[in-house]
């Protein structure tokens, strides 16, 4: 029985990752680049429904970035940022409106730093972080919260 739960958890995580990557790829130019609003980041609210989303989103982000222009660095660091953010969002899941802030913060700090240090974006570190934070805010609150509210109402139908 324990194995069954394990397999199910793992596959659920995998599919969430697939969803993330697929949606990122579908909305290609917008999802990438220095000025990104990654619609798929809205999926981070899935970690408010199941912990399987934590590793899943990490994997999804890894592949989405790997297959995009940023390459390996973006993939490695971006996925770490996503996982940390997802853990935070999961922990805060009962504080519905506050939860996505964990993702916003995690991405702002980590990806912001990545842009500043590795990609040498010629802006002060804080600006890089704020810039990424802004994109995340739009995705997580503009799209994510409505998505979360929607998922909550249709939870049974969807299978979450």
């Amino acid at each position, binding site marked *: 029985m324990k194995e069954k739960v394990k397999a199910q958890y793992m596959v659920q995580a995998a599919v969430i990752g697939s969803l993330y990557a697929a949606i990122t790829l579908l909305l290609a130019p917008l999802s990438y680049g220095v000025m990104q609003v990654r619609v798929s980041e809205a999926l981070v609210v899935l970690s408010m429904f199941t912990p399987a989303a934590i590793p899943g989103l990490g994997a999804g982000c890894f*592949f989405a970035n790997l297959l995009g222009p940023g390459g390996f660095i973006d993939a490695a660091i971006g996925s770490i940022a996503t996982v940390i953010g997802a853990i935070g969002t999961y922990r805060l899941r009962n504080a519905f409106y506050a939860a996505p802030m964990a993702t916003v913060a995690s991405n702002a700090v980590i990806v912001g730093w990545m842009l500043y240090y590795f990609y040498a974006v010629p802006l002060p570190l804080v600006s890089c972080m704020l810039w990424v934070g802004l994109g995340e805010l739009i995705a997580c609150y503009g799209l994510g919260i409505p998505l979360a509210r929607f998922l909550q109402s249709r939870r049974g139908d969807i299978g979450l």
Partner: protein
Amino acid sequence: MAIKDITLGQYFPGESIVHRLDPRTKILGTFVFLVTLFLVNRFAGFALSAAFIAGVIALSGVPVKFMIRGLRPILFLIVFSTILNLFVTAGTPIVQFGPLTITEEGVYRAAFMALRLMLLIFGSSLLTLVTKPITLTDGIERLMSPLNIVKLPSHELAMMMTIALRFIPTLLDETDKIMKAQTARGADFESGNLFRRAKGLIPLLVPLFVSAFRIAGDLAMAMEARCYRGGKGRTRMNGMAFSGRDAGALCVLVAYFAATIYLRTMGG
């Protein structure tokens, strides 16, 4: 835009010596290369790095135009960064356009940053050009397996990544089918303001999520039916083994790294 047209990944097929290296070697190599780029403190160092990566590119058989293509997405960044560095850096002025000054230090810094960024992109995109994502995942799993000691389930993680990768095209297809079915019922995914478009996505998102979790459930059941028990005692069909090629590559890597350190410490 046909969803089928999205080419997955940037793998450039080939049988070169670089293609055939163990993925662990390639991951390590990329990592080392990227580290050296941040150890370099003068142009001589970049000359060495450039020579190194040029050599690997040549060996891999990947056409140069593919490498250049990898720069396209960050072209804007390079230009923007260069301009900013040229004008904003303080120091001894060379040219003056009214209030704007280009300094010697600015030129140096602009060139340095631009070069580093380009080599960075070359290095990391080369990895994905010569390694299939699935092989990369295998390599990551192997590299992470020592972490099993601290309870990191490297196998499950890698298995999850493999499955996620494998289902990306499936979900893209599913999205295509759903979009077509709903469009045939008169759905409009294109027009309207942001809010209306978001609402209009519901006939796409609900079936997509339902399909995704249904696929997940079916797969979990199928794996269970084949006695999947997680990573314990699991063997591989295609073993991964280091060969002479990898030993050679690692030697070259060590030599390059040492040379980079030398150049760094030798300079003033």
